[in-house]
């Protein structure tokens, strides 16, 4: 597996982690009603979107560099 392919795997794992963090923070918000957790959950959700956009950009930008 090339570095390019491993990077895609890594970004996918990071997306899953951030989605989990977002869900965990939202559950904590429901338990505590503390707005900190809600902000945390929204930030993690935004990073999910950011990482997905980055992954797409990365694949396009490095289309001609190395195999997957």
């Amino acid at each position: 597996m090339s570095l390019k392919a491993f990077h895609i795997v890594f970004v996918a794992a990071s997306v899953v982690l951030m989605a989990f963090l977002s869900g965990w923070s939202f559950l904590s918000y429901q338990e505590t009603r503390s707005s900190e957790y809600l902000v945390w959950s929204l930030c993690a959700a935004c990073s999910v979107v950011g990482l997905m956009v980055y992954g797409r950009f990365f694949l396009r930008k490095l289309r001609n560099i190395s195999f997957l």
Partner: protein
Amino acid sequence: MEIPYTYKARPDTGLYNAKVGIWLFLASEIMLFGALFSAYILLRVSAPVGFWPDLALAWPRGLLNIPIGTFNTAVLITSSVTVVLAWASLKMNNFARFRVYMVITVVCAFAFLGIKSFEYNDKFSHYVVRLKDGKALTGHIEVNGKHPGFWNFQDQWDVAKLADQKVDKIKVEVDPERDIHGHAKKHAGHDHEVREIAVSDIQFLGSYTPSTHPFFAVYFLITALHGLHVLGGALVLGYFAFPGAKMWKSNPEQFINRIEVGGLFWHFVDLVWIFLFPVVYLL
């Protein structure tokens, strides 16, 4: 005789020697970290009821600082992006940009280690006090007017040492109370109050060190091992960025392969953290 496929890929597999080598090495690393993760899970699920999570303290929930852990996660994700961009810069024949991305990667690695050492410092100087009435509290302690420092292991206190030194009372700067989910309870004006506790009321006193709870034993073992990998990776990538970069002039193809192999190791180290963070910080 020249060794074949040191930098040219073997036509039938598409792999050069170093790539086969790094994947064999990473396979052994997966087994190492996999065994430690398994140990953590087995210790936790087989722990007696009320011990892990701890009924009195909700341990390990709420023990670690989640914002700091999340920031460190972001630092490592950034370093993975920069290491792959460094490799891509070389592929595009742009050495100056490669060096900039590599320096950012190494700075991220040392930032991660700096933040981790800050966390370690806080844990080693933190204490749990279990009282004979079943209650428990945590915080920084003061013995004979002094705060024990984490850097001096002879300065670590327990009940036997308190009795030995004929200490009657200690002061505890108490952490905010937590519910069973580890969330800090809201009670304005009572955070970090200082309480004086008679040594005769204390059943157990221990700092946040491996001997105090299995959680700390596994936490320190896995995170320290991971930290050593980060340090090793940062040194190798730093070498490639400066003294090792001479190869770019003599054999650019082999140099690009070296960066790819270094990048694969770095991604593995970051991937371990992606699993480690939710396991020890969130669950």
